[in-house]
């Protein structure tokens, strides 16, 4: 059998930010073509872990291998898409101008702009100045930007914050569709009904992994009906 390179392989990752140890010693593996949910109370090192995978976080030790290369290696800049929690787009440009600029940077054909707009359902708002968009529209613009280069790995930090339930559902259908097409997604969230849509869950608390399993096995192990209760049970016994 052909051994597949994992999407993300982390061994003994240690990150210190401002004198505080955020991730003391973290090891985890994310398989390709899966949707992995990263759940954690705020301040647990969720964003730090994501930044380490994207290669924008200075790390104190350990190994982070992404798609077979060291995190942050120049070839990965085309193959990994990252959406920060705060939408990082230009407020004074239109939606389309934002996407067109990043498309030029990535050197992808202009058709990708339309496709990305379709995926996040922003085509009707393409000519709007980003600053005038609602919170949800803003984060979808940021997400569309990350989809432009058809990355193999998408790292999304709280992509559904501020979205109404309908849009959240649509977005998660998009994530599932992307995963079916072979894209690996690592999505952080604090909404438990979203966790149920993941293939695998990572539960992070104070920089340590409390769980790395499927939603079903998490329920079984904690003997709880809902993931909400399972999560609380784990956090409280830890």
């Amino acid at each position, binding site marked *: 059998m052909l051994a597949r390179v994992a999407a993300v392989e982390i061994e003994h990752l240690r990150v210190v930010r401002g004198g505080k140890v955020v991730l003391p010693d973290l090891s985890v593996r994310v398989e390709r073509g899966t949707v992995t949910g990263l759940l954690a109370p705020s301040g647990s090192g969720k964003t730090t872990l994501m930044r380490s995978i994207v290669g924008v976080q200075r790390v104190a030790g350990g190994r982070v291998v992404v798609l077979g290369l060291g995190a942050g290696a120049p070839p990965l800049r085309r193959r990994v898409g990252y959406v920060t929690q705060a939408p990082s787009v230009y407020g004074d*440009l239109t939606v389309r101008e934002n996407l067109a600029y990043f498309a030029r940077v990535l050197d992808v054909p202009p058709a990708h702009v339309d496709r990305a707009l379709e995926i996040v359902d922003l085509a009707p708002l393409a000519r709007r100045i980003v600053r005038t968009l609602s919170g949800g529209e803003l984060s979808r613009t940021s997400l569309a930007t990350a989809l432009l280069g058809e990355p193999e790995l998408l790292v999304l930090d709280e992509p559904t914050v501020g979205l109404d339930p309908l849009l959240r559902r649509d977005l998660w259908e998009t994530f599932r569709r992307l995963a079916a097409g072979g894209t690996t997604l690592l999505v952080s969230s604090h909404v438990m009904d979203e966790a149920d849509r993941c293939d695998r869950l990572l539960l992070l608390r104070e920089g340590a992994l409390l769980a790395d399993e499927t939603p079903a096995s998490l329920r079984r192990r904690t003997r709880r009906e809902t993931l909400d209760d399972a999560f609380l049970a784990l956090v409280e016994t830890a």
Partner: protein
Amino acid sequence: MSVRITLATAARVLRQLRRDPRTLALVFLVPPVLITLFRYVFDSQPQTFDRVGGPMVGIFPFSTMFVVTSIAMLRERTTGTLERLMSLPLAKLDILLGYGIAFACVAATQASITSGVAFGLLGLDVQGPVWLVVLLAIANAILGMSLGLFFSAFARTEFQAVQFMPAVVFPQLLLCGLLQPRSHMAHALEVISYALPLTWAYDALAHAVSGRTGAVVVRDAAIVVGVAATALALGALTLRRRTG
């Protein structure tokens, strides 16, 4: 480094500026208004206006671009767009040169408008060629941009960035020789003035307007461009792929 990304970045920066007509109006209208004020403040001493007015045309873009760049770059840092760019396949130089090209265009427009008003309407009289004044104005704009880019790394908020203007630009304006020949200053200040880039920018302009366009202007301009390049290189060091 990529010409495609550099030009795309320059176009993007210009488009952002165009979306902010109030800033553009300030950039293009304040210098001609100030130079007009200057002209009538020295109404009874036209020779003072002739001596100082020419270099002023070339120095406005320096202070304008310093402020505009430091705030634009601070926004890139605080809104996360810089972090996004740094995670994409582009070179730091693409961003820096993109900004450089965009602001050089703005500076050229600003200097043309200001010199149009000064030379055309206010009767500013200089011995040297006007095109040289405009060219030096563009060089000064790039100097202002590079310094603004560098200093933006030390500001956390736009309030702080704005305060770098009096901290970085004003002392240079005082010491460059525009208000008082440097040889008339306290000796210590004269010595310090040699280390400040605006001194050389002013020197080049003063020579240009007095009609001496030879090697000395080339030397001064070379120093200005050299400092700009150094500040740009230092600015590149402040654009980090990885941050704590």
